[in-house]
């Protein structure tokens, strides 16, 4: 059973439509990654699915209900979202920020109950941020901060977690740390993870399901083997990519690539339907 899907979804700002007639299913308890070039609508899709921005037509359905009509607090108990680089943190301590994750469970002033405290404690623990509990968030490094934001999302106790480029601005080690944490949450607790990633090799390595977008439309969906291949990358990014296998994970990796020359205005839509991937 698929809990979350979109049906002929259209999202746009003013006149400009960003996501066009998109019908996708988000597989349950899997890691789904959305890839695509800048401005292809991946962040917009993520924001629309989490009701951060409204959609013009079509539907987003979670557990059989249109999210546009669902109470936002009920949704907050089902899906957590980590936007791109949340800026200022108002001098909050790590513990305080994470405790905001309990917000959907409170009314008005709502004091934290013992079970809230237990959840917060667990969220700090599993993200390895317990040591910073009393420190202001601004005092931490980028990687630590990102883990704290993930801890806040975890404190929300949702089965789905959406992340918009969670590895941006992090160095290589911290990028891996964040992705491994998400993988662990998925494998050990069966949480559904949906994220936008820029790095194709990270997408290939961690995703169970990849959605490749171009101009707000689907180019290809499927496993890393099905999506990270020469033909799809050619269509999505206009690159000529050399795809090989990661000797450690056996996932496809893009070793090197060139920009494709030729007329960039030429749009060959028939080509898309005839895509065949070498590794499929």
């Amino acid at each position, binding site marked *: 059973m698929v809990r979350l899907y979109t049906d002929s979804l259209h999202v746009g700002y003013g006149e400009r439509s960003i996501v066009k007639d998109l019908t996708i299913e988000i597989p349950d308890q899997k890691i789904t990654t959305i890839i695509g070039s800048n401005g292809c609508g991946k962040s917009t899709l993520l924001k629309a699915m989490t009701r951060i921005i409204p959609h013009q037509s079509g539907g987003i359905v979670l557990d059989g209900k249109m999210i546009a009509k669902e109470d936002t607090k009920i949704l*907050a*108990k089902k899906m957590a*979202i*980590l936007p791109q680089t949340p*800026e*200022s943190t*108002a*001098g909050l*301590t790590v513990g305080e920020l994470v405790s905001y994750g309990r917000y959907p469970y409170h009314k008005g002033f709502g004091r934290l109950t013992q079970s809230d405290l237990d959840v917060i404690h667990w969220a700090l623990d599993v993200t390895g941020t317990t040591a910073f509990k009393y420190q202001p968030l*601004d005092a931490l490094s980028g990687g630590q901060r990102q883990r704290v934001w993930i801890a806040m999302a975890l404190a929300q106790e949702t089965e789905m977690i959406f992340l918009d480029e969670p590895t941006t601005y992090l160095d290589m080690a911290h990028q891996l740390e964040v992705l491994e944490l998400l993988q662990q949450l998925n494998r050990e607790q069966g949480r559904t993870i949906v994220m936008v990633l820029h790095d194709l090799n990270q997408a290939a390595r961690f995703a169970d399901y990849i959605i490749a977008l171009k101009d707000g439309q689907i180019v290809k969906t499927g496993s890393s083997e099905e999506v990270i291949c020469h033909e799809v990358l050619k269509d999505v990014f206009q690159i000529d990519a050399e795809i090989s296998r990661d000797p450690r994970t056996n996932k496809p990796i893009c070793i090197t690539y060139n920009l494709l020359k030729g007329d960039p205005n030429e749009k060959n839509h028939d080509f898309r339907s005839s895509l065949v991937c070498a590794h499929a």
Partner: protein
Amino acid sequence: MSNQPKMGSFIVKLQLAGLIFVGSFIVSMVFGAADTSMHDLWLALSSDVITDQATIIREIRLPREVAAMVVGAALSVAGAIMQGLTRNPLADPGLLGLTAGANAALALTIALLPTANDFTITIACFIGAAIGALLVFSIGLLKKGGLSPFRIVLAGAAVHAFFFAIAEGIGLYFKVSKDVSMWTAGGVIGTTWSQLQMITPFILIGIFISLFLSKQLTLLSLNEEVAVGLGQKTTQIKSILFILIILLTGASVALVGNMTFIGLMIPHIVRGMVGTDYRFVLPMSAIIGAAFMLLADTLGRTINAPYETPVVAVVAVLGLPFFLFIVHKGGRAFS
């Protein structure tokens, strides 16, 4: 839990601020053009004795300083809410055209309805403040890129000048300049108990609701997407906060006229004391804002006694350098 140590130190700081406030109140009551002592103050507040000094305190100084208090608190809280809501360190009800809008509405009301009572004038001020705010925000949003701190201050300056000109024009045309400036330049001079009875409830209710929403405001000031993701009804919360700003600013103008910089200055000072969590910033801004206005008005009354220096001028003299300081720091004093 994580909040406890911070909450404890906050309560200590709040008590200290309370002491400063009480001190400011006593100073404002005792000092002035007429010679009064602590003993007179005690008599005035605790007994029915009628002496010249006690009457001066009861009927002239007390209403005036109560006005200073509530206006200081109202504008400081309004400024803090605006800064949180717009994530703009330069937000201030005066700088963003709200007080000028209320002021113009006040002038218009006095001109067209010479018999208007305090209630009518207060309502007119609410409407004027709302129009001023809407104008500034829509000018700020006209161009893509939205409400950058400096663009909104520019829009505020333009709207401020516009409404100021309107108020002047109305004053000259209808020959009500004197009545209008009684309100606008007079500051808290001549505030009566009946005016206070009319306007103070708006301010107290406004501040009370603001305190109740302070946690929501912190969440909103962090990041709007995070707030939505956590299930906050952001449109609803933002609308209520917007109405609160109008309420607090409009009521202040109805009481004392145009007053700039308080809403900018006080929240900045308060953040230095209690951090940037609005659960702490709002109550502290109310107390420090009240104390500040008491002292500013006392300074205005005594600096050149027996002549009055308008409190607006005192505040502006202190506020302008502060504004330039924040601009110089590029708003970084904000966090």
